[in-house]
């Protein structure tokens, strides 16, 4: 932790600084009965302490798979990682032994999941589950661990924590369950927290509370937070940077302000247009036409071209490279510059 080099803004995939967590040119394939699906095709991103990176994309874009690859909880087989690096404090997680990786999991990097009801074990009390790592890995006594569990439940603002520590997951409301999940992931005070669609299953008001909580915790504990979501609206207030994923690639990567101001990829633009706004009341909500591609047989050229309203001939043949637009900003569109200029038609 001593020599972490904090860069301001983003340093792009080719940046030279040593980051807390860095994914480098990662590839992931799924080998199934029906063939091979390339779900991650050269993804790179990084994370520094105390910052929030939002990874955005539709389901199937590979955002969750990347996170699971970082955690090392992909089922292999069917998953396979043919190439790439995942550096944590400069060490490649992918070359570590399973035992070394297990030590990283939960203690250095931890993760919370979308559906807290099924992600929590139904037959153990929440306090037991929150304190499990403390008992088995930090060597705390049963009593101390449970005391710490109550503190953690207080930390994530679960009311009457002491009284509820012996309750079971199904006795909590959806929002409270997600707080339990968060408390559990914080037990070992990890440096990186990956939140995989933490609010998708929740009511809108509860969503905002959970988002705020995550933002506060990240600041107070100086954690790096990777926020995986398909909802651009959710991340605006919390995220520092945004990586937009499509068909297993990062199509745009920039700080959150720039993305909202001037998207540099047609897909990002489409996502922005599909957020409901108060000032556009009465007009029809724009959507991105078409479906995400079949990764068993991806389209030629740019994977987004069948759905892109700007698609040109070159898009159907050439796969666009990630274009550096300065200030750590990248876009994988042949016409990224034109998009920023507003000259693309």
């Amino acid at each position: 932790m001593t020599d972490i080099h904090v860069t301001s803004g983003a340093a792009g995939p080719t940046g030279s600084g040593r980051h807390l967590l860095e994914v480098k040119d990662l590839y992931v394939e799924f080998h199934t009965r029906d063939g091979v699906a390339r779900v991650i095709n050269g993804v790179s991103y990084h994370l520094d302490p105390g910052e929030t990176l939002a990874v955005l994309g539709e389901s199937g874009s590979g955002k969750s798979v990347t996170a699971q690859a970082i955690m090392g909880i992909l089922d292999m087989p069917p998953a396979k990682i043919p190439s790439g690096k995942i550096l944590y404090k400069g060490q490649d997680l992918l070359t570590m032994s399973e035992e070394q990786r297990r030590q990283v999991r939960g203690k250095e990097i931890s993760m919370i999941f979308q559906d807290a009801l099924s992600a929590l074990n139904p037959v153990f009390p929440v306090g037991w589950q929150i304190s499990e790592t403390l008992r088995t890995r930090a060597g705390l006594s049963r009593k101390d661990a449970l005391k710490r569990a109550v503190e953690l439940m207080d930390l994530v603002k679960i009311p009457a924590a002491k009284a509820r520590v012996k309750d079971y997951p199904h006795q909590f409301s959806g929002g409270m369950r997600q707080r339990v999940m968060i408390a559990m992931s914080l037990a070992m005070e990890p440096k990186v927290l990956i939140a995989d669609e933490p609010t998708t299953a929740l009511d809108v008001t509860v969503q905002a509370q959970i988002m705020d909580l995550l933002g506060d915790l990240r600041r107070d504990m100086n954690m790096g937070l990777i926020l995986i979501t398909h909802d651009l609206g959710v991340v605006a207030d919390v995220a520092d940077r945004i990586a937009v994923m499509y068909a297993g690639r990062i199509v745009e990567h920039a700080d959150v302000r720039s993305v909202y101001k001037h998207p540099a990829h047609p897909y990002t633009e489409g996502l922005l247009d599909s957020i409901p706004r108060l000032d556009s009341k009465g007009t029809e909500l724009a959507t991105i036409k078409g479906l995400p591609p079949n990764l068993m047989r991806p389209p030629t050229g740019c994977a987004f071209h069948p759905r892109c309203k700007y698609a040109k001939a070159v898009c159907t043949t050439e796969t666009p490279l990630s274009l550096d637009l300065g200030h750590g900003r990248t876009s994988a569109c042949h016409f990224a510059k034109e998009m920023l200029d507003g000259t693309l038609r």
Partner: protein
Amino acid sequence: MTDFESVAATELHTATPGPAGDPNAPGQPHTLEVSKPRSASADAWRELRRRPLFWIALVIVGLVLLIAAFPSLFTSADPTTCSLSHRMGDPSGAAIFGYDVQGCDVFAKSIYGTKNSLLAGAGAALVAGILGMVLGITSGYFGGWWDGVVSRVIDIVLGLPLLLAGIVFMKRVTNAGGGQTAILLALISILGLLGWTTAARVIRSSVITAKQQDYVHAAKMLGAGSGRIMWRHILPNSLAPFIVIITMALGSFIAAEATLSFLGIGLRPPSQSWGIDISTARAYMRENPIPLIVPSTFLALTVLAFVILGDTIREAFDPKLR
């Protein structure tokens, strides 16, 4: 033999989708779905065709059916002409498995016993199938008080262990006297009356699931009557688990017939039954085990074939088990 049914039942129950799988779970990303949808039954058949066990079971079932229909094709001996001069006679060209304690041809007895076993099994499966189908569909579809009544009856019948109830019922029938056909018919109806519950439960739950499907709602809105909805839309979807249950039940009914005959309260001589043969041969097995082994093998292979048939079909229809 209630256990056969419980196997099928428990596995079918655990196989029905439980808590919804996480869409982001590794190994099943959304986009992996093949664009060209294949029908479930075509998929199942493709899977089934590759299983050697399925073919072996099918061949045995076919062979057993043939034996039951044309026993004289397989042996020229008459199982009822026995002569004590052949008592415990060794295997020979005339009788390939030799003779039993009464001098009857062991092989011929087993060959001729096939018909009764299959009649009892198939008849009971038919009764159980019709009962289970009708009660399962109507209780699942109409719900309400009728569902309550059927469910309570199922509870009661399940509360009676099949073998015990069979013993009590059959005791009643055999005491009353009556010919061999009457006993066989009694066996069929009793096993059928006691064995329909699993089928009814499975059908009922799949009807309840199917009822909530959009296409059934759509058919209702288009004005299709209850009968038509049940027949055209719900029945086909409940068919796979039903076939599995009935196939396995057939095996267990055959075993039940043999068990009751073995205990002396099912078929009785001069009827041919594997159960009777096993029971008689047991007393003399120190002297000559062959009369015990031959009908045992016939019985075991037949029951096994039906159980394997049902099991392979179930696996093929359940993608989660692949």
